[in-house]
């Protein structure tokens, strides 16, 4: 609880004809001893030293800055007290218009509706601070040891780089040897400038750099049995040939790579049916063993035959049965499918070039025919492609491969729509088919989380089984804090990209250990020291929080009492949004705080004369910046709304809607991120969960005789600033048509 608050008004950034001195006087009068300092500053940014002095002289524990949006200044207001901003500029003055929609005239002072709004916002700001405490971080051990799962190129790189950054490493490899898929790739596509030549994979060097490093412990023939605990102090139990080994680790790098797509998917292209048709992996081994006698070799990249023949996704068969009682028993959904071939096209395009080159290097008379639908050698590797294009012995053409068949003992590849101006049947001694890289996570729960939400990453179907983040900007974020994926388990990628990816994952792992040891959050609220605190006395073990947390941060005991793991938590507040008993809170963000802000708004009794009141709960990551931008761009909206930023719509608790309704608000708008497959929610599930909860809220309202349409959720992307004012006005208009909240004034 902030007991002494300093309130500062930024003259330079308010405007709108507002009588700032009067606003300050009202603040003094209303809040008395709670706000011993209330000042009007000509330029707030120049008053920072003065504020600092006030903090120490007057022992202020909270500072309320009324002026521009908190987003406007970056580094100016880092003060030794809790700081809150009241956005009087963008979301009040600049976005103001009269209730009849006419543009305001500020020349003779602020219109009354604007004065009322500004006063509401300042009071809400004071209450917000009053109900906020400086969070006391909950640090954990921060074990400086990184667990690397998978001993292929990505895993080896991750292990070596972790050690080079000062961390101990435990590397778990499922097979009896290190190297992974690279064992069959002694010579790879380019790994370094000038990006035009094949290169030695130097796998043995990479392996000995790991096995010879005293900081790195390698377990071969080993698998994850369980991963429990939380970042900074995970407990990994590894099943080895000599029994389980238990080790404490700070973070995890998942580099389990891929398995080749089942041969059955390639049968339509001849695999398993015609002896001279082999997979790229088989061919790689044949090359290694010196078993290639064929001279005319077709490398087929067009996989249309396989894709068209594949059975429509055997969804139902693959899906685990909806077990009600047996919810305990986890059944992995098999996400392997023929699409993995298409996703691997770039890796195969580069790979076929590499293999064709090897063939021609061994035998001057060899002829390699590369038949592609899309020759996908993007970026700098074009230089390698060009070199291969010019290489004698390699012939490439775009071709629709319509059949691979045996024609009286000869293997024939039917090619249509080629670049040679005709269709033709290519006779070859051997045909090589591409490899579908199926991420290990598509078929197995490789990490084996000992988490309340189960041993696997959730919702992998959305990303075709890859352990990918589904974010463009933040590729390393998995749904399990402290576990970072790298290499082909995340995306099909060439070896150079695997190495780079592994380095990035090491940085994230190190960062996570550091953050856990300081008790602060990682992405996206990095550095946040708050975390959810549970009042277990009132907990009814309903399990909603443990089930809804998008990151699986909460475990529970047999009775269902939640067991928080602060270092797994991303601080979105989805847990407290879920809690019907409201027993969860953050020091600086809680149910009572937002509820009190709602109750602080003065709701006029006369709906027709003084207008309605509409509460907007807006996601602070996307909707709020969009509202700021709308204000900056001179877009205005109804003066009857009051905006409260929330960490995520997932944190919206139904009680806030009841608070608003019983206070006499006429409607509630929830503004949050897009959800669905291309979700933009930074906490993945927040806006989606809110939409589900909203249905329950609507039902409740209906029972009370309140139109459920008074509460609506809208998706607002951060760049929809030109659209959001009309969205607000449209909602306000519908509320006007509905008339006042029937509970108003009761």
């Amino acid at each position, binding site marked *: 609880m902030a007991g002494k608050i300093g309130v500062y008004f930024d003259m330079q950034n308010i405007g709108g004809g507002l009588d700032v001195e009067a606003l300050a006087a009202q603040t003094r009068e209303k809040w008395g001893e709670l706000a011993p300092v209330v000042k009007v500053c000509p330029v707030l940014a120049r008053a920072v030293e003065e504020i600092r002095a006030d903090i120490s002289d007057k022992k202020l524990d909270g500072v309320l800055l009324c002026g521009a949006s908190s987003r406007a200044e970056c580094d100016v207001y880092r003060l030794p007290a809790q700081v809150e901003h009241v956005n009087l500029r963008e979301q009040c003055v600049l976005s103001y218009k009269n209730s009849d929609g006419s543009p305001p005239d500020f020349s003779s002072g602020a219109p009354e509706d604007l004065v009322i709004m500004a006063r509401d916002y300042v009071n809400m700001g004071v209450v917000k601070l009053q109900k906020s405490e400086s969070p006391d971080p909950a640090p954990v051990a921060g074990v400086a040891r990184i667990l690397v799962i998978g001993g292929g190129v990505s895993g080896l790189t991750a292990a070596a780089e972790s050690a080079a950054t000062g961390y101990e490493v435990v590397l778990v490899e499922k097979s009896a040897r290190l190297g992974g898929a690279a064992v069959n790739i002694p010579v790879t596509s380019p790994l370094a400038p000038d*990006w035009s030549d094949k290169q030695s994979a130097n796998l043995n060097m990479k392996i000995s750099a790991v096995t010879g490093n005293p900081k790195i412990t390698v377990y071969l023939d080993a698998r994850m049995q369980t991963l429990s605990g939380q970042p900074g102090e995970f407990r990994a139990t590894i099943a080895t040939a000599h029994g389980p080994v238990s080790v404490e680790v700070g973070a995890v790098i998942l580099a389990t790579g891929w398995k080749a797509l089942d041969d059955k998917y390639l049968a339509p292209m001849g695999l398993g049916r015609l002896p001279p048709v082999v997979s790229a992996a088989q061919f790689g081994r044949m090359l290694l063993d010196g078993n290639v006698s064929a001279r005319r070799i077709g490398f087929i990249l067009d996989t249309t035959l396989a894709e068209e023949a594949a059975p429509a996704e055997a969804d139902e068969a693959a899906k685990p049965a909806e077990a009600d009682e047996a919810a305990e028993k986890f059944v992995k959904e098999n996400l392997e499918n023929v699409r993995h071939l298409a996703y691997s096209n770039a890796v195969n395009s580069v790979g076929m070039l590499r293999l064709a080159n090897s063939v021609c290097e061994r035998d001057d008379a060899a002829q390699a025919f590369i038949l592609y639908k899309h020759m996908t050698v993007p970026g700098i590797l074009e230089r390698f492609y060009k070199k291969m294009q010019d290489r004698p012995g390699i012939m490439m053409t775009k071709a629709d491969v319509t059949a691979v068949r045996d024609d009286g003992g000869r293997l024939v590849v039917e090619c249509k729509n080629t670049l040679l101006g005709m269709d033709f049947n290519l006779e070859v001694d051997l045909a090589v088919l591409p490899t579908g890289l199926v991420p290990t996570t598509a078929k197995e729960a490789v990490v084996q989380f000992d988490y309340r939400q189960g041993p696997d990453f959730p919702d992998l179907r959305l990303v075709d089984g890859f352990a990918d983040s589904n974010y463009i900007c933040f590729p390393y974020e998995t749904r399990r804090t402290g576990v970072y994926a790298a290499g082909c388990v995340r995306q099909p990628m060439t070896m150079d990209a695997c190495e780079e990816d592994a380095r990035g994952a090491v940085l994230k792992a190190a960062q996570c250990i550091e953050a856990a040891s300081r008790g602060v959050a990682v992405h996206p609220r990095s550095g946040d020291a708050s975390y959810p605190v549970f009042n277990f006395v009132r907990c009814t073990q309903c399990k909603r929080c443990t089930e809804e947390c998008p990151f699986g941060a909460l475990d529970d005991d047999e009775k269902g009492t939640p067991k928080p793991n602060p270092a797994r938590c991303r601080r979105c507040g989805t847990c407290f949004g879920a809690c019907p008993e409201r027993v969860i809170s953050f020091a600086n963000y809680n149910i009572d705080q937002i509820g009190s802000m709602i109750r602080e708004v003065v709701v006029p009794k006369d709906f027709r004369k003084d207008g309605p009141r509409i509460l907007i709960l807006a996601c602070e990551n996307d909707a709020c910046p969009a509202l700021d931008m709308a204000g900056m761009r001179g877009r205005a909206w109804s003066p009857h709304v009051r905006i409260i930023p929330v960490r995520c719509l997932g944190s919206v608790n139904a009680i806030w809607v009841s608070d608003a309704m019983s206070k006499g608000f006429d409607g509630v708008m929830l503004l949050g991120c897009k959800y669905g497959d291309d979700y933009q929610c930074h906490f993945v599930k927040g806006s989606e969960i809110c939409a589900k909860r909203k249905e329950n809220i609507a039902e409740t309202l209906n029972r009370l005789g309140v139109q459920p349409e008074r509460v609506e959720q809208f998706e607002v*992307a951060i760049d929809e600033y030109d659209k959001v004012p009309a969205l607000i006005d449209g909602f306000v208009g519908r509320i006007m048509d509905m008339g006042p909240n029937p509970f108003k004034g009761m």
Partner: protein
Amino acid sequence: MSNAILVAGGGFAGLTSAIEAAELGHDVFIVEKSPWLGGRVAQLNKYFPKLCPPSCGLEIQFQRIRKNPRIKFFTQAELVGLSGGKGDYTAKIRLTPRGTAPHNVDFSLLASALTGETDNEFDLGLSKRKALYKAMPFAFPARYVLDGGTLSKSDMARVAGAKFVAPPEEPREIALNVGAVIVATGWKPYDVTRLANLGSGSVKNCVSNMQMERLASPFGPTRGKIARPSDNRAPLNVAFVQCAGSRDQNHLNYCSYICCMATLKQCLYLSEQNPDVGITVYYIDLRAPGRYVNMLEKVRARPNVSFVKGKVADVAQAEGDRVTLTAEDAVRGEKLTLTYDLVVLATGMQPSLAGESPSLPLSLDEDGFVTGGEEFGIFAAGCARMPLDVTRTAQSGTAAALKAVQTVRGR
């Protein structure tokens, strides 16, 4: 000796490296040439394949910077010299003063009252800007900049009397002590005036893909309505010319990685505004790596979009400010000559360092990509190293941050 890290460039690669290193506990300096952070991605309307707005990710990055006292950034700043060695460099930074107060001031009224105008580089010449300006709504830092050269006579009088504006002074230099350097200088769109057969940038209604991003952007010159620059009319048929400069020994001797995906994305922009708009994409290869192939198939399935495999030989002005395009259909072996309302050149990315004399002890290849420097504690990230999309840039930036951290740690 210093444990701090210098990041040259405040685009997506630079921001990522800087923030990731800082969140691991290192002091970081970002040096950005332009007045704001965000780089090329800030000019984009949407990202492929999710069609999500770049400002969403940038906003998170900027929040991370706001909260983290370990990150210091300099805008309108250039790294002009580097002396010393790995672990102990002195970096000389030239700072151009902003001409406005060092805090946030809403200058929108004053700015709109000014009369002097110049081409808006942010919109790649598709619009004009004033002398006092903020290139984008999400500008970070959220501060205006004063460009003295664009002030008209009457502007000078207005500005002279204005609060919080100071006439630009001479640049000054500061020195920073750092242990490692990350080069994240990014890329520039290939100069279309060099593409003689594609109209050298002088054909009306023939725009580049980056200009297309601005046309589609809600804060672009047309507020997001895609229109022909000559008459502001929505185009009814559009052609995309892939590999405009890329994969060409005379221009860019590599594939620019993003242009196929960018074009697919722009096909969706156009189709969203008019589902019947006719689009033809002329390509050499359609490169949609990894799961991006889903987006390729989505666009291919659209009835209004067709694809022709073949290189475009010529682009020329036609009647009514339309554009005539000559291409060879490589599969059918036919020569095609067709006229369009709008032609988009999918121009490639050229490293910013191409043709520059770098102030760093760096080796560049003949295209201008960084090829070394690790042994000196200098690491390239993002498109300074190779052409990449945003996701791979984030990877690359994070990886470079690790190498820089290793360099300054544990010495």
